[in-house]
C-alpha cells in the first residue's frame, strides 16, 4: 500500500528523467568512449559548464512551483557578469563586487516579486520587462565585451582557475600522464545551492508555502498564508539564486558582454520541466530539475564530442525532449481527470 501510493504519476516522471539521463550518458559512453566520453572528467565538465545553470534552475523551480515563471534570469546573468567585469576593471575588490551583485539580485528580485505578488501582474509580463531591463542595462553599463584577466582581479582569476581534485576516477592520457579529475569551486557552490534549495522546499514553512500556493492560491490565502509575501519571496529567491549563478557563470566565461547567457532562461525552464516540475504549479522538486540540467548538458556534450554535428543540434534535441516530456505530462493529467 505504501509503495503503491508513492508510485504516482509525478514519481514516474522523475524516474523517467533519471532513467533518460542514464541511458543518454551510457549511450554517449558507448558511442564516444574512444574520444574520452567515458572518463569521469567528462561528467565533471558537464557540472562545471552548467554550475551557473544549476543555481538558476533551482531558483526557477521555486518560481514555477508557485505557478509563476521568471524569464529575466538570462538577462540578469548578463547584467551581473557585466557589473562584475566592469567593477573589477575599475579596480574594485572581487569580494566586494560579488556582494554588490548579490545585493542587486535581492533588490531586483524584490521589485519583481512586489509587482507579481502585491500588484498581481502576470509573472510572464513582469519578468519579460525585467529581462528587457537587464539586457538594456548591460548595454548601458558597457556595450563592448569586457574580460576579466589576472591583471584586473587576481583574486577572481584565482577562484576561476582553482581546481578541486577528486581522488579517484582518473585516467592515463596518451602521453602517459595521469590525469586527476577535478571540479571548480563553482560546482561546489552549485551543489550547495541545490542541497539548500532541496531542504528549504521540503522542510521549511516557506518551502511548503510555495507548494501550497501552486496547488491553490485561493486556498492558501484562505488558510491564512500571506500569498503576496510568499510570492514575492519566490521571485526574490529566484533572483538571488540567479545572481549566485551569475558569479558561477562568470567564473567560467571570465567576461561580461551584452549577448551573454542569451536564452539561458529557456534552458532553465526546459530543465525544470524535463525534471518533472509542472508549469501549473505545485508539483516538482529540485532533484528532478538537477537531472534536467544534466540531460541538457549531456546532449551538448555529446554533440560537442561528435564534432561533426551542427551547433544547432543541442537546441533542437532539447526542444524535442521538452516536447516529449510536456506531452507525457499532459497525457498523465488527462488520464487523471478521466479517472475522476
Amino acid at each position, binding site marked *: 500500500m505504501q509503495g503503491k501510493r508513492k508510485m504516482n504519476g509525478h514519481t514516474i516522471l522523475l524516474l523517467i528523467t533519471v532513467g533518460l539521463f542514464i541511458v543518454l550518458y551510457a549511450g554517449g559512453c558507448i558511442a564516444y568512449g574512444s574520444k574520452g566520453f567515458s572518463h569521469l572528467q567528462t561528467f565533471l565538465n558537464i557540472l562545471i559548464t552548467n554550475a551557473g545553470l544549476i543555481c538558476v534552475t533551482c531558483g526557477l523551480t521555486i518560481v514555477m512551483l508557485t505557478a509563476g515563471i521568471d524569464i529575466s534570469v538570462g538577462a540578469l546573468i548578463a547584467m551581473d557578469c557585466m557589473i562584475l567585469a566592469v567593477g573589477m576593471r575599475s579596480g574594485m575588490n572581487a569580494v566586494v563586487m560579488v556582494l554588490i551583485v548579490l545585493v542587486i539580485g535581492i533588490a531586483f528580485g524584490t521589485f519583481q516579486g512586489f509587482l507579481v505578488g502585491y500588484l498581481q501582474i502576470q509573472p510572464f509580463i513582469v519578468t519579460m520587462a525585467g529581462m528587457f531591463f537587464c539586457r538594456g542595462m548591460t548595454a548601458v553599463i558597457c556595450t563592448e565585451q569586457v574580460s576579466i584577466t589576472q591583471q584586473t582581479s587576481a583574486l577572481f582569476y584565482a577562484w576561476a582557475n582553482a581546481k578541486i581534485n577528486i581522488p579517484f576516477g582518473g585516467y592515463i592520457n596518451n602521453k602517459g600522464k595521469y590525469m586527476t579529475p577535478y571540479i571548480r569551486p563553482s560546482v561546489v557552490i552549485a551543489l550547495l545551492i541545490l542541497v539548500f534549495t532541496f531542504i528549504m522546499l521540503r522542510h521549511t*514553512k516557506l518551502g511548503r*508555502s510555495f507548494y501550497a500556493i501552486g496547488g491553490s492560491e485561493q486556498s492558501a490565502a484562505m*488558510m491564512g498564508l500571506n500569498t503576496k509575501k510568499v510570492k514575492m519571496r519566490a521571485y526574490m529567491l529566484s533572483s538571488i539564486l540567479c545572481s549566485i549563478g551569475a558569479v558561477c557563470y562568470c567564473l567560467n566565461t571570465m567576461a561580461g558582454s551584452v549577448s551573454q547567457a542569451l536564452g539561458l532562461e529557456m534552458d532553465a525552464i526546459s530543465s525544470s520541466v524535463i525534471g518533472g516540475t509542472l508549469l501549473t504549479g*505545485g508539483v516538482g522538486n529540485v532533484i528532478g530539475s538537477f537531472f534536467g540540467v544534466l540531460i541538457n548538458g549531456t546532449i551538448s556534450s555529446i554533440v560537442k564530442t561528435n564534432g561533426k554535428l551542427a551547433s544547432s543540434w543541442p537546441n533542437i534535441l532539447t526542444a524535442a525532449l521538452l516536447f516529449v516530456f510536456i506531452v507525457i505530462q499532459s497525457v498523465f493529467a488527462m488520464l487523471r481527470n478521466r479517472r475522476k
Partner: protein
Amino acid sequence: MEDNVVLTARGITMTFPGVKALENVDFTLRKGEIHALMGENGAGKSTLIKCLTGINDFEAGEIRLEGISGPVKNHSTKDAQDIGISTVYQEVNLCPNLSVAENLFIGREPMTKFHTIDRKTYNTRSQKIMDELGISVDVTQNLENYSLAIQQMVAIARAVDMDCKVLILDEPTSSLDDEEVEKLFVLMRRLKDKGVGIVFVTHFLEQVYAVCDRITVLRDGRLVGEYPIADLPRVKLVAAMMGKNLDDLAEIQKETEENVRNNDLEISARGLSHAGTVKPFDLDIHKGEVVGIAGLLGSGRSELARAIYGADKASTGTLAVDGKQVKINQPIDAMNLGMGMLPDDRKAEGIIGDLSVRENIILALQAKRGMFRQLSRAKQEEIADRYIDLVQIKTASRETLVKQLSGGNQQKVILARWLATDPDFLILDEPTRGIDVGTKSEIQKLIVKLAGEGKSILFISSEIAEMLRTCNRMAIMRDGQKVGELDHDLTQENVMKAIAGGEAHE
C-alpha cells in the same frame, strides 16, 4: 454579553455601489448550537458572512466575540481565524497537492529545533485529530486522492483544530450526496456538543430541519427575524424568506395533467453509457413529454443527460432521435438534431460571463448556423429583446455583461439561449438550483408550457417536489444505473422509495 452567546453582530450595514446589501442586521450565535442562516439570493447571507470573516468591510455596526472585550473588526480571513471564526465553503479551500496532514497544519506547522517542519509530530497529531472526529483517512496521502466529502471534512477538522469558536459552513452540502451529508451532520453534531457555535447556510430545507436549532432569516438585506426551529414550520420559513405566499406553485400540477401526450418518440436511447459514470441504460422520451430523472447526486443523473447530449461522449449504445439512428460526438451534433442542454453548473458551463446578455442569448443559435453565417446585428438585437421579454430577464440593457446579473437571471439567459434555437428536445439539469423561489416557479411553469407546445423535456432536479409538479414520468437513477421508471402514482413517497432502493424496505 448574555450567557452562552459566542458571537453577536449588531446593526451591520454595508453598501455596494448602488445597492444596500445589508441594512442594520443583527445576528446572535450561541455556544453549542447549529444556527441556520436563511434567505433567497440577494438576501444578504453571503455578505453577512463576509463581514464576519473580514472579507468585506462593513460601514456601520459592530461585531462582538465572547472573550474579547470591545468590538472586533477583521480585515482578512486570517484575522478572523486568529480570533476563532473559521469558514468552510462549498468549494473546498485546501491544497490538493499537499498531504491531508499538511493541509491541517499549514501556516502553523510544529517546528523542530532546527527551524524545520516537524513532520513526524504533525503526522501523528493529524491522524489523532482525524480519528477523534471519526474520519477515516491516511493523513500522509495527498488530499486530491480523496472524495469531495472527505476534503470538506478535512477542512472542517482544520477549522476545529484551530480552536474555532464559530464555524461557518457556507453551503457545504451542495456537492455531497445524502450519505455524505449524513456523515457531515454527525460531525456537526459532535462539534456542537463540544460547544462550537455553527452557522449553517444551505438551500435545502430538509437539512435545516434535520440538524439546526435556530434559524435567522434575512430578506433584501434586512433581518426578518430569529426563530427557534420549533417555532418555524417549513411553510412559515418559506413565507418569511419570500415575503409572499406561494399559491401559484400549487396550480401547476393541474396544467400538466391536461397535457395531451403525443405518442411519437422524440428520443430513444438503447444501451447508452459513459464509461465510469453511467452504466448502459434505455430511455424513451415522447414528444410533448416531460421526463424527470430522480436520483441522488452522483447517481449518474447528470451523466445520463450528458451522454445523450454528447457533453460526455457515449461509450456504448445507440441513440435514435425522431426515429432516426444518430451518432453524437460533441454538443454541436446534438444541437443540430434539435437538442439543447442547460448544464447544472451555471458558472462553469453555462454563462459566458464577460459577454453581453445579447451575445449569450444568440450564442447557441449562431453556433448552429456556423461561423460564416453570422446573424446580423439587427437580428441579434431582435432575438435578444424577444427572449429578455419572454422569460423576463431583469437586466439594465441587452448589452449588460451577463456576469453582472443575479444568479436567477443568469439562469434565465441560458434558458433563453436554448429557447432561441427552438429545440425539440431540451435537457434541463438543475435549472432551479440556487435561485429564488419566485424564479423557480416561473421556470417550472415555462417547462410545462414548452411541453404543451410539443417539445420534449428531460428535467433533472434535487427537489422531488418540483419534479412531481412538472413531470409526466420519472426515471430513477441509483449508483450510475437506471433502476426503473415511474409513470403513475407519482408521489414523493414512491419516488423516495425507488431512489433509496431495496434496502429502504428492510
